[in-house]
């Protein structure tokens, strides 16, 4: 029995990361932690793309990864600014408190 790391191993890890990310968004109530979980989703996709690129020997996936990293950085810059502004105004970042607009 060989113990080589195959594409499937990478995909399982990436799937696990993605599932953790989704679970974090659903379960946690702190906007910052949710945002962290969302970044994990993107990185799960990055891992899958790199693995696919390596095993299929096509470089397109790795090109996309660079774009995703850059875009994720932009998203963090904007996202944290919004969350900080929200904290300044409300003194909390719990998503349970985001309820000024109910019926």
């Amino acid at each position, binding site marked *: 029995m060989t113990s080589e790391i195959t594409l499937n191993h990478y995909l399982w890890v990436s799937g696990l990361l993605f599932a953790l*990310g989704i679970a974090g968004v659903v379960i946690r109530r702190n906007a910052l932690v949710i945002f962290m979980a969302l970044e994990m989703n993107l990185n799960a996709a990055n891992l899958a793309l790199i693995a696919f690129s390596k095993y299929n020997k096509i470089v397109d996936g790795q090109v996309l990864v660079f774009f995703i990293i850059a*875009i994720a950085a932009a998203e963090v810059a904007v*996202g944290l600014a919004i969350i900080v502004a929200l904290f300044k105004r409300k003194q909390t970042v719990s998503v349970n408190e985001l309820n000024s607009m109910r019926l």
Partner: protein
Amino acid sequence: MNLYATQLECLLVILGLGTLLTDAFRPGGDRRKLGYLLATLVTITLLYSFTLAPTADTFFHGMYRLDSFALFFKRLFLLATAFVLLMGAEFVERFETGVAEFYALVLLAATGMLVIASVNDFILLFVALELVTITFYILTAFLRRQVQSLEAGTKYLILGALSSGFTVYGIAYIFGTTGTTNFDKLATLLSAGGSGSAFLLGMLLVLTGLGFKVASVPFQIWAPDVYQGAPTPVTAFLAVGSKAAGFALLLRVMLAGLLPVSAVWMPVLLVLAAATLGYGNLGAISQRNIKRLLGYSSIGHAGYMLMGLAAGNALGSQAVLFYLGQYAFTNLCAFLVIIAVGREEIADYAGLGKRSPILGAALFLAMASLAGIPPLSGFFGKFQLFAAVIEAAQTNWHYYILAGIGAGAVVVSLYYYFNVGRAIYIEEAKDTTPIPVSLPVRAGLYVCMLAMIGLGIYQQPLVEAATLAAGIFGLK
């Protein structure tokens, strides 16, 4: 040649960056006039776009197309941008700071939308999509001293990032199983051979992720809160620009790239369309805030347009384009009135017909067109969508259920749209002071009303443009 194909985008980027510089060179200038100027320049760009001819070539290594479909959407986005800039100029007093930045962000988001119209590759799709989405995070939270705007921004941020995660994870699987990100190559590969379950997983993830932009189930939950909390010009841009961008992507991905596996995604879209119709129209019934009402209504309308896409025939895709075109005028009209009145509770619109006949008439026409009352353009749009679904039902009886749900949604929607109509003309006003309407807003309202009535009676020009644009997919 590549640069020539992207000239409209280049123009908007130059305009946007130039606008940013005005704060450095002319601080304290008249920002309202700047808005009118930019709206005029974008209108000129829109007129200029009619001199461009569609081409079958691809640009940037097959990533970018300038076909009739792309041009149709580019013109739609330019129209929406011009109106949103006009709304921004009317909104100037309500922004505390950063009006020039606001205009610049609108122009940059518009650039992203123009690229979206031409996308022919998943890599470009993701980059253009995020350019629009991230810009909209800022725009939504732009009134940063108001809790509602910040809450709207946070909600849009969380759900937007979640849907981006879905999209990009789906793209990873589509790329991994087919080895390409190009739509044309994908279509060739898929029609040649079968598709495994890993590929289908990727496709469904992309489909749900793109559904966020159009506010379809399962990513519809943001729409009411974000529509209510965002500054009104941004809400209008979300309803008209962002939604059309979502449909441009859905149409292009599903009909250009993934058409060979339509047997898989059509039933999914059928269910999503039905669920979206139900959620939007039932949710709207009890709303008292007009922006929130339009948020639910926009979910409902996403459902109608998904019906056309789910039908998967030539009439359906053409009907979606026609619907988007007339929906733009209708929604822009409604939001122009909301900005001019400056109040958001439906009760505040009591007696609007007496306080300002033009605002009352414009909002009433917009609501009637959204409800689909003949002879307004909304009626013909819905008529075509239902005709497409009935045509699809000839081969698959499940579509009769979808048509039934759609008909039920129309009946329900009559109630809440006419609630607004009743406020305008029947209820007595508490405050009877006339509302001043500035000349540019008046002009904008006349254009929208003319389009709503004109496209309802004489549909030919827009139908022809939509047929030409949808023709690139070669559907039957």
